[in-house]
Structures are given as C-alpha cells and as structure tokens.
C-alpha cells in the first residue's frame, strides 16, 4: 500500500506563489491541499473611486503573464 508525503514549498515556473501538500497513508489520501501563500493585493479596493478610464490600466497589473485578460 502506498504511503506518500509530498510537500512542494512553492511551485515554480508560474505566476504566483502556491504550495502543494499531499499526505497518503496505506493508499488512502489523508490530506491534499493547494495553498495560495502569496501576498493578497486587493485590486477590488484599488479600483474604488477611480476614474473609469483608469480601470483597465490598473487591472492589467493583476497578472503580468495574462495582462490582457486581466484587463477585463
């Protein structure tokens, strides 16, 4: 029976910080977690009270890898 303990302290080659925790005992998954550990940025607060023409310029900074989709 499989016993497995996976602890990936941050996934690489992606935008954002995420950890993976997997705990398998005797073939049974006890725990399986993806933890988003990066600092929250609060974009919903950034755009409060801003002129409408700024919004897509601000939200495009959500993610550098997908700046165009983040705009919308």
């Amino acid at each position, binding site marked *: 029976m499989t016993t497995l303990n996976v602890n990936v302290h*941050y996934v*690489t*080659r*992606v*935008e*954002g*910080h995420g950890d993976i925790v997997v705990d398998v005992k005797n073939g049974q998954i006890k725990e399986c977690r993806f933890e988003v550990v*990066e*600092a*929250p*940025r*609060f*974009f*919903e*607060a*950034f*755009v*409060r*009270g*801003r*002129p409408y023409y*700024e919004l897509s*310029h*601000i939200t495009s*900074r*959500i*993610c*550098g*890898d997908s*700046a165009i989709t*983040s705009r919308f």
Partner: protein
Amino acid sequence: MTSNGKPKVAFFDFACCEGCQLTVVDSLQTHLDLLEAVEIVQFREAISDRGEDYQIAFIEGSCTRQADEERLRKIRAQASVVVALGACAHTACVNALKNLHPLEDVRRWVYGDQAEWYDTYEARPISAVIEVDAIIPGCPIDREEFIRVVKALLLGKKPPLPDYPVCVECKLKENVCMFHIGKFCMGPVTRAGCGAICPTYGDGCEGCRGFIPAPNENAMKDVLADAGLTVEAIMARFTMFNTYLVSARKADGEERR
C-alpha cells in the same frame, strides 16, 4: 562567485504581477550573451533551482505584510547588491492605491467575513525596509534598461538612472505633444528611461516610473488644470502609480526617488 568567476544572481518576488520578471525573461532571449556572464541560481518564475548562495538579488514587488520584512532582510543579508526591479519594488506602484482607504475597509471589501485571514498593511517600496543599491523603474521595466543595468553591475559601476523627465526623450523622438492633441500627460514630472513609449504610441504618460528628483507638482497641476482636468482627475493622475510617493512627499515635504 562561482568557481568559474561568474557572479551568482537570484530573482525574488513580493506583492506584484510578475510582469517585470517576465520582461527579464524576454530581454534575456535576445541577450543570450548575458546568460553566459552570470549564473542564475534562483528565479522562481522561470527555473526550478533555488540556490541560496548569490551576490546579486533582483527584487520585484512591494512590501505589504510583516512576513515580507523578514524575507527582505534575509535577502539583504545574503546579497552584496540589491536591485529594485520595477515599480512595485521601487515605488509600491498600484499596490499603494489601497493605502488611500482604511485598511479594515480594504480587507472587508475583498474578503468579507474572512477578512482577518488575510494579513496585510500599507503597501511600501522595498527601500522602506532594506537598503537598495540600484533601481530599475517602470511598470513594467524597460527591457533595454534592464540590460544596461546588468552590464553596469557586471562592470562594477553604479547603474545609470536618468534624472531628467520623460519629455526629454519624447522631444528627441519628435513626437507631437499630447497636450496639443487634447490628451493629458505626466511626462514633465516623470523620470525618463522608457524612451517615452506611451506618448510615442499616442497615449499620455501615467507616471509609472516615479517622479524626477524635485518635481514641480504645482506647475504640473496647473498645466493639467489648464488642459481641462478637474481637481479629482488631476489627483487621480498623480496617485495612479505614485500614491506612495505623493503621500511620502506630503509627509516630509522633500523629494524622494
């Protein structure tokens, strides 16, 4: 140094979009010779290695919580040279827009009942926590400037940081001024180095590279008002990328980078 004499370089990120790191990857694709000159030991967005022995640290992102301070100090203790990579690290960029509201509101608006799960305080540039040796401004950074800075560091020189405004580069490009075609521009108070890319492509500068030393804020406000902007719209121009700098200037009445 590695046994082959190449400086070891590491990249780190804090609160940011990682667009500046992406620009680094992009620049290196056309400057493969630079990859020969250094050894990259840690760069989470691009490689899986995570070496902790490095001399040059490029730090992207703003400091937005207590845990960031410890991590920043650890990097500073290891690196002989720390470079602020991009506006998030240099000026706190759009991250500082949340500083305009009470923090309890900010957390509640976004996370409601779970607000207390998310640790945060006012967004700050990394220079608020550790000493910074060089700056690459911009949101995102300019890829050619990144190359220039790396070359200067490898030669043991202080990387150049333009102290004149975007208007200078804009004039050298012979652009028609945005104010002459009914648009608005922060070029007169914004640090050059991007080649005035926004006005060159027909949009006013938004000030993403931070202010020049001793910017004449009042004259800039007058120019924007004469061009038809309301007081609110003028303040929005100043705060979009530079909330932290505007508040810092207001607080101590002196210019900051």
